[in-house]
């Protein structure tokens, strides 16, 4: 019996493609009211007057929430959640009120009838890496220190025969999942029910109960389906609290709140830009003697977020002298958050382009240069890697891609080149509990996980079927509801490994207690928590990204006709959903490389290209041939399941591979994303 490894179609696929899957906003409730948000149009200051008379007089308006006129919320770590507590405005677009009405049209109309006066303070929203008020964060999100130093990089740079010393930058990117954030909220019998589009129902319950001063058992969060999140739904944002307050103001009447696409550019986080001062020193053979990076990013003065882009440099390549630093500028801007492969995604841009520059300078193949600098143990911790198959990925990718005959060429009007970059993402697990109940001949697995489109509905039954030793069709699954046992958020590429490990333990417990012939209603639980695995090993997934780039000789238009990735990510549970994760990440990486940039205007303090016509995401015509492969990797050390997580590594390194290929095609080295034609044009003949 081997369900794991089988190419199983998504269990939720049919419901989704036929429109029968209900998303948070579509929850079937009676007599729903609708909530529309009022947002600040200044970047800093406070409201001096707010007049809701006209708005309240509009027929169909039920109630209006204004600053200081709502429940006193509990103080929590996340100041984003402290909505409408006072008149203070910390960034342009901040929620400063909400209208609840019989229809969404009336609610939105009423927001236009609210009259506001502001006291405006000077704001500072302009990010540069040479500001004199940069600060060093206390720690990274992983708990690791902001800065690390080994040896003496400056001396190595002075004495090495070959050095690279450049500044690279990545742009502000917005997560922009297809489904806008949405919540349907119902307050009834001292209980709050939230149908919320989220990556973690339990995380929403914990945060909302705390901020609303409720017991966790007074809050139920339900989320069967999510139309993507990419980190922006990794924790509740302010609008979820607004939806809850609105529901509380209208007991027994469900309230729907969906963000507009424009609101998603201010209210639900984004990947901040990074400026990466990157230095490499090498001897004549290409062996690195030093590697160093300082990554500088903006954060919001309201809440600190560290994009840990210097982190991957700590463990990627061997070099005796090493230094990594993070610096932040706290500005009057919206709050950044996780976006697919936070840290690693931007952090593998600068260094992987720098490696390519070094290879070019030395006349060494960039694959050989990377292989030459493979560390024997994790350079940061000195621990062995639980498994590290970067070299295998590079070699297999080179064969599949046709790397060997890579001389740049001209085909008609197009200049053609190829590029490579490495990818890495840590393999963590988190905490989860699963239950298994025997019911009418089926095994019902329940776990409070969320499927944000990754395949949890499908892969968790595969894991359970094998663990129980039963055919797949005898396993039923329940996820996306806080009535199911606690499960960690679908983030950090930890979902399948964490929840799957809990399912493994639950299955083992079930068999131990009830044997192979259980009776109706028999039930067992099993839990997984981080470690002890990570204490002895350094656990990462690796990959190699290959790109072919074509640049138009006249106009410098850029096309990527081929992307190919090979990954080593432990055990692959379902090749169909896995391939979708890898190629989806790679496509998003292509999008980051060529298109995505949020245009913040510091004069106003907000992003002004806040729709999908002006914020470019790769279209189908841009991503024509994206292929993903993987190495069969058995890693008994990483976690009980042997799976490393695949949701994020596909986006890591893609942009560097594309930029390296564009250089190969044209001879023009671009160090700032996105790679747009105006950056290549001056270098073309």
């Amino acid at each position, binding site marked *: 019996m081997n369900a794991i490894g089988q190419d199983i179609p998504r269990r939720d696929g049919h419901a989704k493609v036929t429109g029968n899957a209900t998303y948070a906003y579509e929850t079937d409730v009676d007599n729903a009211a609708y909530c529309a948000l009022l947002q600040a149009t200044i970047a800093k200051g406070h409201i001096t007057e707010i007049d809701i008379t006209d708005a309240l007089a509009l027929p169909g308006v039920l109630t209006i929430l204004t600053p200081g006129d709502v429940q006193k919320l509990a103080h929590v770590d996340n100041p984003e959640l402290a909505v409408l507590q006072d008149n203070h405005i910390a960034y342009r677009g901040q929620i400063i009120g909400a209208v609840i009405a019989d229809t969404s049209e009336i609610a939105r*109309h009423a927001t236009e009838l609210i009259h506001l006066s502001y006291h405006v303070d000077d704001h500072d929203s302009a990010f540069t890496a040479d500001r004199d008020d940069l600060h060093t964060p206390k720690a990274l999100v992983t708990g690791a220190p902001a800065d690390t130093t080994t040896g003496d990089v400056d001396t190595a740079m002075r004495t090495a025969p070959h050095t690279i010393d450049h500044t690279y930058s990545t742009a502000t990117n917005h997560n922009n999942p297809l489904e806008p954030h949405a919540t349907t909220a119902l307050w009834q019998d001292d209980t709050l029910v939230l149908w919320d589009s989220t990556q973690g129902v339990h995380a929403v319950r914990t945060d909302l109960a705390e901020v609303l001063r409720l017991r966790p058992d007074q809050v139920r969060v339900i989320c069967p389906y999510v139309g993507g999140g990419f980190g922006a739904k990794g924790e509740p944002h302010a609008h979820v609290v607004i939806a809850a307050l609105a529901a509380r103001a209208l007991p027994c009447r469900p309230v729907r709140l969906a963000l507009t696409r424009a609101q998603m550019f201010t209210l639900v986080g984004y990947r901040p830009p990074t400026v990466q001062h990157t230095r490499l020193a090498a001897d004549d053979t290409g062996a690195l003697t030093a590697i160093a990076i300082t990554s500088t990013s903006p954060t919001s003065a309201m809440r600190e977020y560290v994009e840990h882009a210097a982190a991957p440099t700590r463990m990627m390549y061997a070099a005796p002298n090493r230094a990594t630093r993070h610096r932040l500028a706290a500005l009057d801007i919206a709050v950044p958050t996780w976006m697919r492969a936070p840290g690693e995604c931007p952090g593998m841009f600068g260094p992987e382009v720098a490696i390519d520059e070094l290879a070019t300078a030395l006349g060494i193949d960039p694959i050989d240069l990377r292989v030459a600098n493979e560390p024997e143990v994790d350079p940061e911790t000195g621990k062995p890697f639980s498994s590290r198959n970067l070299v295998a990925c590079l070699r297999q990718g080179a064969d599949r891609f046709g790397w060997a005959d890579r001389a740049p060429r001209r085909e008609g009007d197009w200049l053609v080149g190829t590029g490579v970059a490495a990818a890495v993402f840590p393999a963590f697990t988190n905490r989860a509990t699963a239950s298994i109940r025997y019911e009418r001949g089926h095994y019902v697995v329940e776990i409070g996980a969320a499927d944000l489109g990754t395949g949890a509905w499908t892969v968790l039954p595969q894991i359970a079927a094998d663990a129980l030793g039963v055919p797949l069709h005898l396993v039923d699954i329940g996820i996306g509801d806080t009535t199911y046992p606690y499960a960690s958020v679908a983030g950090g590429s930890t979902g399948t490994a964490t929840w799957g490990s809990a399912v493994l333990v639950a299955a083992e417990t079930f068999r131990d207690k009830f044997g192979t012939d259980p009776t109706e209603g028999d039930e067992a639980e099993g839990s997984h928590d981080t470690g002890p695995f990570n204490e002895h090993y350094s656990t990462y997934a690796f990959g190699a990204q290959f790109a072919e780039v074509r640049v138009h000789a006249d106009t410098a238009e850029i096309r990527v006709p081929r992307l190919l990735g090979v990954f080593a990510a432990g055990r692959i549970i379902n090749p169909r959903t896995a391939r979708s994760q890898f190629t989806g990440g790679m496509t998003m990486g292509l999008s980051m490389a060529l298109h995505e940039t949020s245009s913040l205007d510091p004069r106003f303090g907000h992003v002004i290209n806040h729709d999908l016509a002006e914020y470019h995401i790769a279209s189908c015509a841009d991503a024509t041939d994206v292929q993903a492969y993987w190495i069969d990797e058995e890693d008994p050390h990483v976690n009980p399941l042997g799976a490393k997580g695949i949701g994020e590594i596909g986006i890591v390194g893609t942009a560097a591979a594309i930029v390296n290929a564009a250089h190969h095609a044209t001879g023009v080295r671009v160090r700032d994303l996105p790679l747009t034609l105006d950056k290549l044009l001056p270098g073309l003949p």
Partner: protein
Amino acid sequence: MRPFDYLAPTDAATAVRTVATNPTATYLAGGTNLVDHLKLGITHPDLLVDTAAITTAGITDHHGGLLIGAATRNSDIAADHRVRTRYPALAEALLSGASGQLRNMATAAGNPLQRTRCPYFQDATTPCNKRRPGSGCAAIGGHTRGHAILGASDHCVATHPSDMAVALTALDATLHILGPDGPRTLPCTDLHRLPGTDPTRDTVLEHGDLITAIELPHNPLARRSRYRKVRDRASYAFALVSVAAALETTDGIITDARLAFGGVAHKPWRAYRAEQALLGQPANDTTYRTAAEAELTDAQPLNGLDGGNSFKVPLLTRTVIATLRNLDQR
């Protein structure tokens, strides 16, 4: 979004009178731009007058050319065999614009009347002289990648977003208009205006004027026309620059030419100066470059937060050369 009244008249003259006498009325055709504006709070009409029953859809032969009914969908124009063979630049322009879904909704008359996608125009919380006269132009000193290098003013640096209108301008199309005083015609080259001191007005049309048809004149040269659009992604993006061109050569000497630019001005930019520079010259890159540079001598690129748009000058020059070279080699 505010409530509004909706009228679906069946008599064109009555509809024109209704709109002409009501400053807060506006026509609704495909709605692909207007509905966005209603949601974004860019415009607040009290009355929408649906043109569906008072305009025709369809393409008819007309004095050796074609007459395109105002209600004809963009997708139908692009697919029409006569358009594809006799006016390929128009078909190419249409297919390079928007998305399949939008082209299925957008109409012949609506497309040239779409408004700028300047992000400051589309964000009702920022100053914009086109949206709120006298409030200032936020694009100046802001993000100007999509903005003008020709014919802008201190009041507005927006570009016209239509691809179709650039082709119509090059192909000497004529608009059939029904106004309060009756029908009239207007060359497409005269439809759009430069911003000057009043950027609120995109075109010379008077309030209430209704475009009823677009006429493509008979012109064998148009058979050798094409539309080249350069943009930031392979599909669904507005032009950074675009070129509609037609070229006739005899024994390697240029005998006739049409040239219009998109993405560089408040209107589709008919490049008369470049056309003159091409006539009688040998068909080669040097000639094309000289012609493009003649047209761009007055170009004034903008500085901006994102590095400005000075790249559009060499980009347009190179695109003109590549397009004309390609036409000559066909």
